[in-house]
């Protein structure tokens, strides 16, 4: 076995004896059969030997690995734009309160703003059931083993959940703070929930979702008096990670702080015309 790359057919390939740190930059697409690629000198277990040189060549690619997801997300975004729908991707750890927030939100928007919901869940349609009967069209995506929604899955259910009257779309992502952050769904706005029991330093420990959030909702504020949760430290951590994000504090349970959230939604919908 070849020690350099761990592969089994050491005889059939070539390594550079340097560390692929080419100082010659390939600025063209195909860099065939460069002289440097013919060194077969190879060091194993303290001895150097020579492999029959199989020519390798470098091809410069510079492709976005998530290009397919980005392309589908852009299609979703154009679609939503055409229908003048404000779409919110809701991301949080499991149990931070996404579904209860949506229940309370739908109740308040009922008969006022035509709203649709897409819910991603690993296994069940329990969250979708909780959101039935509140005036919104609700569609469940069972992701089975995927820990996140991607643009393709959303595009599959989008036509069945929105119509020309829809103004607002919520996409409740799979309960997971880390994985959904990598996947653009075509949303207008990314909202991350952080519940008070999760602790005030979470934005510093898991910065990426917060860096990418246009709004952060600090949820379950009703629980704060029962916790050692420090409000100032939490807001500081959020502002340090992302000073341009808007922070709202609310309790879906008691309704405290919900007015500002509803007001934000009304304004976002109004802006879409």
């Amino acid at each position, binding site marked *: 076995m070849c020690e*350099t*790359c*761990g*592969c*089994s*057919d050491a005889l059939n*390939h*070539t390594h550079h004896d340097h560390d*692929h740190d080419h100082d010659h930059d*390939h600025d063209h697409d195909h860099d065939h059969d460069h002289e440097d690629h013919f060194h077969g000198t190879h060091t194993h277990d303290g001895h150097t030997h020579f492999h029959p040189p*199989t*020519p*390798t*060549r*470098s*091809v*410069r*690619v*510079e*492709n*976005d*690995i*998530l*290009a*397919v*997801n980005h392309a589908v997300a852009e299609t979703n975004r154009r679609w939503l734009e055409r229908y003048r729908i404000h779409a919110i991707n809701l991301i949080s750890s499991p149990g931070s309160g996404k579904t209860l927030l949506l229940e309370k939100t739908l109740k308040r928007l009922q008969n006022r703003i035509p709203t649709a919901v897409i819910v991603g869940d690993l296994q069940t349609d329990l969250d979708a059931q909780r959101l039935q009967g509140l005036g919104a069209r609700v569609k469940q995506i069972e992701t089975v083993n*995927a*820990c*996140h929604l*991607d643009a393709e899955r959303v595009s599959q259910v989008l036509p069945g959940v929105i119509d020309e009257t829809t103004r607002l779309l919520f996409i409740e992502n799979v309960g997971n703070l*880390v*994985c*959904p*952050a*990598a*996947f653009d769904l075509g949303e207008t706005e990314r909202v991350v929930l952080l519940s008070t029991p999760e602790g005030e*330093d979470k934005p*510093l420990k898991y*910065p*990426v*979702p917060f*860096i*990418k959030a246009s709004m952060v909702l600090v949820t379950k504020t009703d629980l704060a008096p029962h916790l050692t949760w420090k409000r100032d430290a939490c807001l*500081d951590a959020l*502002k*340090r*990670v*992302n*000073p*341009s994000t808007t922070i709202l504090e609310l309790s879906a349970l008691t309704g405290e702080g919900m007015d500002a959230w509803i007001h934000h939604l009304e304004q976002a919908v109004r802006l879409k015309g």
Partner: protein
Amino acid sequence: MHELAIALSLVDQLRRIAEREHATRITCVRIRVGPTSGVDGEALAFCFPMAAREYPSLEATQLQITTEPLQWLCLTCHKLFSEPSSEPVCPYCGALEHHLTGSDELTLESVELT
């Protein structure tokens, strides 16, 4: 682990490149992972062999992943610094206002093939 989904997209792209280039094997793949991409380089390297299984052209392909750390950007002096999260001042000017920053790219940079 969403890195498996990402490894599958990567494998798709690599197979297309191998075909286009009439290559029998891709021996080495270079990838840049930005710190706000939401992708963990080690997890991606872990998932890649599973995603590449069954494709002879991707047997024993070596992944070279370059990652950069997140950095703080001072809003006062606009300098970048890395800093333990417990000490909330800019080491250059002492200002308190700064935010985390870093590229969100996830780029297949180049491949080495035979």
